[in-house]
């Protein structure tokens, strides 16, 4: 029998149900995998005791025939989700040692469904980054390597710990959060699937805020079916989040058929950017063919404000972040640096100077600037207007089609440190993912092929608001035809 860690989540469920192995055995094997992979730096906190006690509870539930949807499934939790009694830092020094007294709604739902938490996953500091290199606790190393190379690669970001851990078979699935592509881009970089549902589908309560109007929890997993299972468990209305959507959650996994007959799939012409990587362009064309094979009608659509999406995002997100991060002031929790004989303002300055990393500071300054008197209209207000136009673009496109098919990221994974000196080059990673975030639409990345260097590339599907089912089903159809079976070979 193959290692338990190689099973997909759906296979683990089947094995547990058939009593081929216990949840304890399944979790124990993953704990060992986590311990053996510390060189990847994917985990900030390992919680084997919690995982085992949850596994035992799952075994009892399985025996009693009362197992939840994710009974005994070992998960990794992005360290942006507050977990009761377990250190939660958002990869920032300013929250070092912070142990929440509360459980985020999403993790509570997952644990309620029987899942086991292996630990907390590394991320870009406060989810600000596209390579997981801004973490105060060191970068995550991708389990992938280019053909014939030992150069360390980034796992994408900000959910880089999540993508690396799932790709390296350290957990069955991991939670992520996506503000401008933070689930989809790392999923694409590491050859796994990841879905960001409609804004409001999953509760943000207990998720440390980056940009409130964009942040959305989601999941990274081995394949579409696994994403569907976890998404169902973590979705749903939460009265504690005023932006949460009160809509029924379908049984996603049960709805996967992969039959796209009668579906129209739109190809946005503005996503065909100059100088696009040839491998990527070829893969996108293949995706179109797979969709046709599955019965879909292909239509070309226009999203005229695509070019404005990235600058809009880099005004709106930092603006909200500059305000959301004001609470880290050294007064009530987290790091406090109080200079001898200093004033309150001195304490703020010293605490925040010491506690925040360079990228977080950069975004706080950008955000503060664009909201300042005299600049607000030119930046923030204008960005809000463009954001409305971007949403309108999508609404109009969805009159001509049911789903959109695009690449997930402009390139495959890049080398550690390759873009850290050039923030703009780093921000360009999000060019295909940001528009759907600004419009709050469900969007998913699936692994679809490899670059000539043997590194994964992803395709993105974008759907109408609340049509996660349509997105998942189309992704399922493409996944079957792509037949992506590559996995990183273990070097750690």
């Amino acid at each position: 029998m193959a290692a338990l860690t190689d099973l997909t989540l759906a296979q683990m469920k089947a094995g547990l149900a058939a009593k081929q192995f216990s949840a304890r055995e399944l979790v124990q094997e993953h704990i060992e995998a986590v311990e053996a992979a510390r060189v990847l730096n994917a985990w900030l906190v390992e919680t084997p005791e919690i995982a085992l006690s949850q596994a035992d509870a799952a075994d009892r539930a399985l025996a009693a025939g009362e197992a939840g949807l994710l009974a005994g499934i070992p998960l990794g939790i992005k360290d942006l989700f507050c977990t009761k009694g377990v250190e939660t830092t958002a990869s920032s020094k300013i929250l070092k040692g912070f142990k929440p007294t509360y459980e985020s709604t999403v993790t509570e739902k997952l644990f309620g469904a029987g899942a086991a938490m292996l630990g907390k996953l590394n991320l870009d500091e406060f989810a600000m980054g596209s390579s997981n290199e801004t973490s105060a606790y060191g970068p995550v190393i991708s389990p992938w390597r280019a053909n014939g190379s030992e150069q360390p690669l980034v796992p994408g970001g900000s959910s880089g710990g999540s993508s690396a851990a799932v790709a390296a078979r350290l957990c069955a699935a991991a939670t992520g959060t996506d503000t401008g592509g933070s689930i989809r881009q790392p999923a694409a970089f590491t050859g796994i699937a990841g879905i960001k549902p409609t804004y409001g589908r999953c509760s943000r309560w207990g998720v440390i805020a980056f940009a409130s109007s964009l942040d959305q929890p989601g999941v990274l997993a081995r394949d579409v079916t696994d994403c569907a299972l976890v998404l169902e468990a973590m979705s749903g209305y939460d009265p504690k989040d005023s932006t949460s959507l009160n809509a029924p959650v379908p049984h996603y996994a049960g709805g996967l058929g992969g039959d796209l007959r009668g579906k129209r799939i739109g190809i946005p012409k503005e996503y065909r950017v100059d100088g696009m990587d040839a491998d990527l362009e070829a893969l996108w064309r293949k995706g179109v063919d797979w969709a046709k094979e599955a019965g879909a009608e292909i239509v070309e659509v226009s999203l005229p404000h695509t070019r404005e999406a990235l600058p809009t995002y880099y005004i709106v997100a930092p603006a909200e972040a500059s305000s959301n991060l004001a609470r880290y002031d050294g007064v009530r929790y987290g790091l406090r640096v109080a200079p001898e004989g200093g004033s309150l303002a001195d304490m703020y300055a010293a605490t925040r100077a010491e506690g925040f990393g360079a990228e977080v500071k950069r975004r706080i300054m950008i955000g503060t600037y664009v909201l300042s008197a005299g600049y607000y209209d030119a930046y923030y207000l204008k960005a809000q207007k463009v954001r409305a136009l971007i949403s309108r673009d999508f609404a109009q496109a969805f009159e001509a089609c049911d789903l959109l098919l695009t690449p997930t990221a402009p390139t495959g994974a890049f080398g550690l440190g390759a873009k850290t000196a050039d923030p703009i080059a780093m921000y360009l990673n999000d060019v295909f993912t940001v528009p759907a975030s600004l419009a709050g639409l469900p969007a998913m990345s699936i692994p679809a092929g490899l670059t000539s260097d043997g590194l994964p590339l992803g395709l993105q599907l974008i759907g109408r608001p609340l049509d996660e089912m349509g997105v998942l089903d189309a992704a399922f159809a493409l996944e079957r035809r792509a037949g992506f079976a590559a996995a990183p070979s273990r070097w750690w």
Partner: protein
Amino acid sequence: MAETYTIEGRTGPWEVVLGLEVHAQVISKSKLFSGASTTFGGEPNSQVSLVDAAMPGMLPVLNGECVRQAVRTGLALGAKINLWSRFDRKNYFYADLPQGYQISQFQHPIVGEGKLEIETEEGGPRTVGIERIHLEQDAGKSIHDLSPSASYVDLNRSGVALMEIVSKPDMRSPAEAGAYVTALRQIVRAIGSCDGNMQEGSMRADVNVSVRKAGEPFGTRCEIKNVNSIRFIQQAIAYEARRQVEILEDGGSIHQETRLFDPDRGETRSLRSKEDAHDYRYFPEPDLLPLELTAEFVEECRRSLPELPGARRARYEAELGLTPYLAGVLTADQDSADWFEALLADTAKRQGKPPRDVAERAANWMTGELFGALNKLGVEVADSPVSPAQGGELLALLADGTLSGPLAKQLFEIMLETREDPGAIAEARGLKQVSDTGALETAIAQVMAANADKLAEYRSGKDKLFGFFVGQVMKASGGKANPAVVNDLLKKALNQA
């Protein structure tokens, strides 16, 4: 036209222009965006939820009761209710502001323009425009005097709902500002949207003061922050207006700034200038959806409003025939009006008369006897030792002749002390008018016999001695004789000869 309030300067009279921003704490069990309690006086930091402490990942959820109270307040001020409003973040750093921003309503407040009728002794009635009312969170409290080297923060008030009620710059004297706050306080208390308790800080005002020569455009204003009594508001205005006039007459100019009133010294002093003013970086609160109200909700709020003080006062004058003065005193606060209406209903019932016929008597007794007594005791009308029903009984005993005026006063004193019913007291202590003609005739005969000389003088034409005989009979009855009956009988007896 009544006399205008002016500051007399060397160069002539200056007009004072005033606008008020009143912060009124909303009466609600829990805070504006969290479930924590709003009770005043709890142990420090005992009424703080995770949201109020701005823990990571916490989100605000709007309290519907606070919305209802703001709408009711708007309706009571005849204001436009905005069916679409929005919350904004006002960003600034302070130790007692855990989020690093206050959730407020900047661009789109829940209540728009309205008005408030005020009345001053010198100025007569006038209308003050309301610019807007918006909902916002209160901050916590920094305490600097517990330790020489540290400050403490109490977050019990953090997140409590405030209505900021912004007037137009329509007031022209400290008296008008006082009357405005008084009238506003009456209304919010009457409808139960704020307890109006200025000592506990449930109501406080930012006062905008500027001066100008008559007919000139508005001058530059200074804002005096957080003044917490009507008297201080008036003192602060008088000081600040005088200060501004002196600067202008010395050839200086007024710099827009925020000032504080020091009640101990009776003066205002600069807190920060416009140049140092915070850039609050307002932007729409992304954690909350815009607030959309239905017309039905607003109608429900309207139906829930009690009779407002102004309408009640007009009704007392028109329906009950009370003087404007009595109507004004009785409607000055909800408790007095409630007490009066209970007294009136009881009095009318006991005496079998329409309320209009007994209203003036009841109003006079309440504003004279009752308020006088409560004042002496230092007790609010709501805590009166005498109930409206007991007052009604006392008035009935007066009306049917069981008590004389002096006896009623005596009995009322006993009621205040013992809280017993007047009928029972009168019975037990024999405090009843004697109208029994037989007993009085005997007393009269005795007095006449004992004062034969005076009787002779009277009969020989000294009419003034009639009063002497009345006094003697009253004295003999121990003050209980009915004076009218005594008069009648005495006249007959003296003139029989």
